[in-house]
C-alpha cells in the first residue's frame, strides 16, 4: 500500500514539477506598472526609507525649515530640493493652483503622520507671494495677468521647468529652441491645447506629464502669441 501511495505522490509531484519547470524555462516577462504611476516621484503616503509618512518627515528635510515651509517650497520651487534618485520634473504648482488650493494640499500632507499648523493667516500671506495670475476659466484674464508677452507667458506657465528655450530651462522635455523647424504653428497650437495629441520621439515615457489645462489657463490672444512666438523659433 505504501508503494502505491508513494507512486501516486510521485506522479502528482512529477506532473507539477514538469509544468512549473516548463513555465520557468520560457522567457519571463513581468507586466510592470507604468513608470508614471509609481516611481516618478517619492511616495508621500507611505513610509519612505523608514522616515515615516510625509507629515512626519517634512520637518526634517532641510535644517531650519519647518514642515509647512518645506512643503510650500516644494510646491513653489520644486527643483530647489530634489530627493536623490528622482528627476526634477515636477511643475511649479503655485502657478497651477490657487493659494487656497496650495494650502489645502499642504494641510493634507501635514495630516499624514504630522501635525497640521496651516491657519487662515497663511492663505492671504501666500497669495501675495505667489503668482497671482492663475485663472481656471476662459473668462478670466489668463496667465501672467493676461499679458500677451510670450516670454511672460512662458515664465508664468512654468514651461522652462521641463523645456529648454534659448539656453534657459531644463532638458527633461524636448528642447523648444528650434521647435518651429519641427512643427507648424497649427501643430504647436494643438500640442499646447492637447499635449498627448502627439509625443516627440524619444519622450514616450514622459507622455502625460505636461498639464492639459493650458486651454483654460490662457486666453485666445495669449495662446496665439505663444504659438506664433514658438513657431518663429526655426
Amino acid at each position, binding site marked *: 500500500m505504501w508503494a502505491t501511495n508513494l507512486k501516486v505522490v510521485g506522479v502528482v509531484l512529477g506532473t507539477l514539477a514538469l509544468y*512549473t519547470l516548463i513555465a520557468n524555462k520560457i522567457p519571463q516577462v513581468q507586466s510592470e506598472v507604468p513608470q508614471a*504611476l509609481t516611481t516618478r516621484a517619492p511616495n508621500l503616503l507611505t513610509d519612505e526609507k523608514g522616515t515615516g509618512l510625509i507629515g512626519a518627515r517634512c520637518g526634517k528635510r532641510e535644517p531650519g525649515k519647518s514642515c509647512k515651509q518645506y512643503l510650500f517650497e516644494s510646491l513653489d520651487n520644486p527643483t530647489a530640493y530634489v530627493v536623490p534618485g528622482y528627476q526634477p520634473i515636477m511643475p511649479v504648482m503655485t502657478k497651477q493652483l*490657487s493659494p487656497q488650493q496650495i494650502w489645502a494640499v499642504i494641510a493634507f500632507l501635514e495630516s499624514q503622520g504630522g501635525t497640521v499648523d496651516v491657519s487662515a493667516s497663511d492663505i492671504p500671506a501666500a497669495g501675495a507671494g505667489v503668482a497671482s495670475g492663475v485663472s481656471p476659466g476662459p473668462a478670466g484674464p489668463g496667465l501672467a495677468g493676461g499679458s500677451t508677452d510670450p516670454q511672460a507667458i512662458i515664465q508664468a506657465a512654468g514651461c522652462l521647468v521641463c523645456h529648454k528655450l534659448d539656453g534657459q530651462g531644463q532638458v527633461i522635455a524636448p528642447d523648444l529652441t528650434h521647435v518651429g523647424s519641427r512643427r507648424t504653428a497649427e501643430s504647436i497650437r494643438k500640442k499646447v491645447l492637447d499635449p498627448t495629441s502627439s509625443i516627440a520621439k524619444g519622450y514616450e515615457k514622459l507622455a502625460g506629464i505636461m498639464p492639459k489645462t493650458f486651454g483654460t489657463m490662457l486666453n485666445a490672444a495669449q495662446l496665439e502669441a505663444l504659438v506664433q512666438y514658438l513657431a518663429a523659433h526655426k
Partner: protein
Amino acid sequence: MPEALLLLQAAADTSHAYGEFPLIGARAAVWIAAEVHLMFAAFVLGVPMFAVVTEAIGIFGGDERYDRLSKEFTRLLLVAYSATAIWGTILVFFLATLYPKFFAYLLAVFAPSTWVYAGLFFVESFTLYLYYYGWDRWKKGRAKVGHWTLGILLNVWGTIVMFIANSWLTYMMTPPRDITPSTDPTTIKLWHAIANATWMPINVHRLIANVVFGGAIVGAYASYRFLAARTEDERAHYDWMGYVGNFIAMSALIVLPFAGYWLGREIYQYDQSMGITMMGGFMSWLWVIQAFLIAVLFLTGNYYLWIGMGRIPGAERFRPYTKWLLVILVLGAIVWGTPHTMIADSKELAAMGGSHHPFLGALGVMSAKNTAVNLMILTTFLSFLLYRRANTRPVVPWARTGTLIQGAMFAIAAGIVLFYGIRGYFVEAIVRIGFSVYQVLAVLACILCVTVIDLLMARGAQSLGAIRWGKMPPRSQYALFILAVTFTWLMGLMGFARSGIRQYWHVWQVMQDTSAYAATPALGYAAKMISLCVLIFLSLVAFVFWLGGLAEKSTFVAAAPGVSPGTRGAQHVGH
C-alpha cells in the same frame, strides 16, 4: 478647483489602502486563499452535477450502481463544503485586512448581493444535508424522484451562488463603461454592475469547467481506490467509476473551448487593448503553456481509452486505427502550441528574421490553430465512438449504410474544418474570425448526428462479450491522476490569465492598484504559485477522501457472496 479635489481624493485613497502579510506578502496570501477556495468551490459545484446525473441514470436506467456511485460522492461533499466555507472565510479576512480600501469599494457596489450569497449558501448546505441523509429514507417510487429533485435544487442553489461570485470578479475585469474613477460606488446600480460584459461568458465557461473538474476528481478518486483495492470486485467497481468520471470530464472538455472563444471575443469587444495584452502581449507565452496542457489532456484522455479497449472483447478490431489517431493528435498539439505574436528582444527578433518566424508564423495563426483543435476534438470523439462500439456488432439491417453515413459525416466535418482553415489565409481578419463559427458548427453537428445514428444502430446489437471491468494495468490509473492534476493546474493557469489581464488595476481603469504588488508577475512565478495551490488543494482533497473512507465503507457491492474470495460481508451500500 475640481482638479485639486481629485488630487486630494486620490491621495486620500492611497493612504492606509493596503496591509502587509508576513513572509509571502499580501498578494501571495490572497492568491493562495482565493485559488484554493475556488478549487474547492469548483469541486462542490462540479460533483453535485455529476451526482445528480448519475442518480438520474440510476433511477431512469434501472442500474443501481449509478445510484450508489452518486451517494458515495455526495458523502464526500459534506466535508468539502466545510473546506470551501473555511477557505472562503480566510479569503474575506485577507481581503478585509490586506486590501481594505478595495474590499470596501467592492462591498459598496455589491453589498446586497453578498447578503443573498450568504443566505443561499445556508440554503444550499441544508439542501445537501437533506439530499445525503434522506438517501436511504426516500429510496423508492415518487419519494426517490423527490429525492432526485433535491439534487437538482442543490445544483440550482450552487449555480446561483457561483453566478453571484462571478459578478464580483467580472466587474473587476469589465466594469460598465460609464463607471469612472470618480463614480461614487454607492451610486452604481447593482444589476448594472452585475450584468457586465464578461459575466455571462464566465458563468457558462465555469459551469462547463466545473463538470470537467468534477469528473476529473471523481476519476482520480476512483483510480486511487482501484490501486488500493484488495478484491477483484472492488477493482472492477472502481475501474468502472474511473471510466465514468473520465467520460464526463472529456465530454464536457470538448465543448469548453467554444465557451472560451465566446469569453475571449467579449474581452476583445469590451477593450481591445485588454484582449491584445491577453493574446499578444506579456501573456502570449501563457497560451503556449496552455496548449501544452491541453495536449497532455487530449493525449492522456485518449491513451486511457485506448488502454481501456484492452478489457473489451472485440476491441482488437479497432486497434490498428489508434496509431493514426495518435498521429493526428500529436500533429494537432504541435500546431496548437506554435507561438505567433509574442514579446521578443532585439536578439530574438534578429534570430527569427522578424517579429514572426518565417515558418512557424504560418502555423501560429488562428486559422491553423482552430483547424488543429477542431480535428483533435473530432479525433477524441472518434476514440469514444470506437470504445463504445468495441464489444458490440450492430444487427439492424441498415448497419452498413449507417456506418458509411457516420464515416461520411466525419469526412465532411473534417473537410469543412480544413477548407475554412486554408481559406482563412486568403481573407481579411474580420472574415477569418467568422470562419471559426463554421468550423465549430461542423464539428458539433457531426458529434450530434453521429451519436444519434450510433444510438439507433446499437438497438438490439449483438454483444461480443461483457467488458472485463478491473482488467486494467495500473498505468491507466496513473493516467487518470495526471488528468486530474493537469485539469487543476490548467484551472489555476487560466485564473491567472483572467485576473492578470487587469494588470495594475483592481477594477479595470476605475480603481488602480497602487500597492507594492501592483506589477503582474511573470509566468515562472505564477507557475510556482499555481503548483503550490494545486498541492494544497490535492492534499486537502486526499484528506477529505481519507475522512470519507474512515467513517464509512465504500459503496461497491460484490456481484454475489462467494463469487469472489474476500468479498463476504462487503454487500453494504453507503453506511
